[in-house]
């Protein structure tokens, strides 16, 4: 999940909404530092911020803001969103766990220096992940299951879009469905998480297509036969967003609604355009 596609569209946010968004981001950063270590803060991502906001909004647990200073840049003043439940520490655990598994995954398919570097930091992350696993075993289990299923899917180079995206989608669906207060809400959260997860996976696949082609790695879009790949990607990605948005509407969230609406309606689609269009430009360059 350390992809960073789940962002806001800053230009469409109100100033106070942007402040609140930053305050959650800083709050999560602080929590990661507190629960794990200074270094682990590097695993902070927009995706985890999105997860935090969904948790806080579901539990209505954000109680206000307080001022403070940024640890990375002591000259910078910043605000932190206060939270009365364990949303932060859950999101912190989720960041650390996903960062750890991503590290293992990266180690398999990268160059010598990157392998060396990950070899050095891996034991640290292994230690932090153990700590996170102790706090939230169900999160670790869901992510571990995803990694296994993903490995299996990628063994078969003919795997389609749906099958390839399923492990990530299922993982996020499961992780979010833990938060439901009753069966119906669990179902809605599962569907929401499933399609957000699917979207994130497919965004990553679209983003890495050129790289994967060059290095002969698995990528579900390599199997697609179409005249207009960018257009195809847009329609597949759109559909995931549409289904996630339909589920999102049934959640009837109130806290952070402006920010979450912004992400669903502007942030994600615009990020999607950036990724898909860059691909298209590269294709055009080649044909010239």
């Amino acid at each position: 999940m350390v992809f960073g596609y789940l962002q806001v569209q800053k230009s469409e946010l109100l100033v106070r909404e942007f402040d609140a968004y930053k305050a959650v981001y800083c709050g999560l950063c602080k929590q990661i530092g507190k629960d794990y270590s200074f270094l682990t803060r590097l695993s902070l991502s927009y995706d985890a911020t999105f997860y935090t906001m969904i948790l806080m909004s579901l539990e209505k647990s954000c109680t206000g803001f307080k001022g403070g200073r940024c640890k990375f840049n002591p000259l910078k003043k910043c605000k932190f969103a206060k939270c009365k439940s364990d949303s932060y520490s859950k999101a912190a655990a989720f960041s650390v766990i996903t960062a750890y598994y991503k590290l293992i995954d990266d180690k398999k398919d990268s160059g010598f220096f990157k392998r060396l570097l990950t070899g050095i930091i891996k034991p640290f992350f292994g230690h932090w992940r153990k700590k996170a696993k102790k706090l939230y075993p169900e999160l670790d289990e869901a992510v571990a299951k995803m990694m296994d299923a993903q490995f299996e899917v990628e063994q078969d180079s003919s795997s389609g879009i749906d099958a390839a995206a399923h492990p990530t989608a299922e993982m996020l669906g499961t992780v979010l469905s833990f938060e439901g207060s009753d069966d119906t809400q669990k179902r809605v959260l599962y569907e929401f998480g499933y399609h957000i997860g699917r979207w994130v996976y497919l965004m990553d696949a679209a983003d890495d297509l050129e790289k994967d082609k060059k290095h002969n790695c698995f990528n579900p879009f390599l199997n697609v036969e179409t005249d207009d790949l960018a257009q195809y990607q847009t329609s597949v990605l759109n559909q995931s967003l549409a289904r996630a948005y339909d589920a999102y509407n049934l959640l009837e969230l109130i806290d952070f609604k402006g920010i979450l609406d912004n992400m669903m309606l502007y942030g994600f689609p615009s990020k999607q355009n950036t990724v898909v269009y860059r691909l298209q430009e590269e294709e055009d360059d080649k044909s010239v």
Partner: protein
Amino acid sequence: MTNPYEVLGVSPSASDEEIKKAYRELAKKYHPDNYAGSPLADVAEQKMKEVNEAYDEINRMRQKGKGTGSSSSSQTSGSYSSNGSTSQFYSVRIYIQRNMIQEAEQILDSTPEGNRTAEWHYLKGMCAFRKGWSEQANSYFTTACNMDPNNPEYRAAFNNMHGQQTYNYGGYNTGGSTYNNASGCSCCDICTAMICADCMCDCCRAGC
């Protein structure tokens, strides 16, 4: 009973116009078309029902004494599940309706090659769609439509897919494609038409 004003998210002092606007927005949001084939269709239906009841309730309270006489004509479209009773895949439809996708797929997969009709493809598509496997669903629906181009049920599912592929809820242009609209703007048209029809109904409904 819950406060109808809360359901619509308006204050009790809101004007009729504001209430109508809030109602329309919610009705658009929970419209069955958005959730056709979705595993959450029942949740949306429940929400829609609550919104309708709240709107009716408010109108009843406000119209008391004004004495309009028209009767309610809430138009619920049953087109999504109506033509199943005579089909050879009746049990599959029941399973899908109950969200028992594995059982439905088992029956479908054991159907011999020769019996795989347009309906078979449509139902395979429904199963895939429920699971969230939209791409597979897309190709099954396309085959179903090609095999039986005049069937409104298959066409509706196909159009629903294409509507989602444009994702223009926020008015955000996600690419300016012509491909997505290749099937004509029929889906949008139907949607708009239904919303309009819905609003018309609401005007008459006030006095029930």
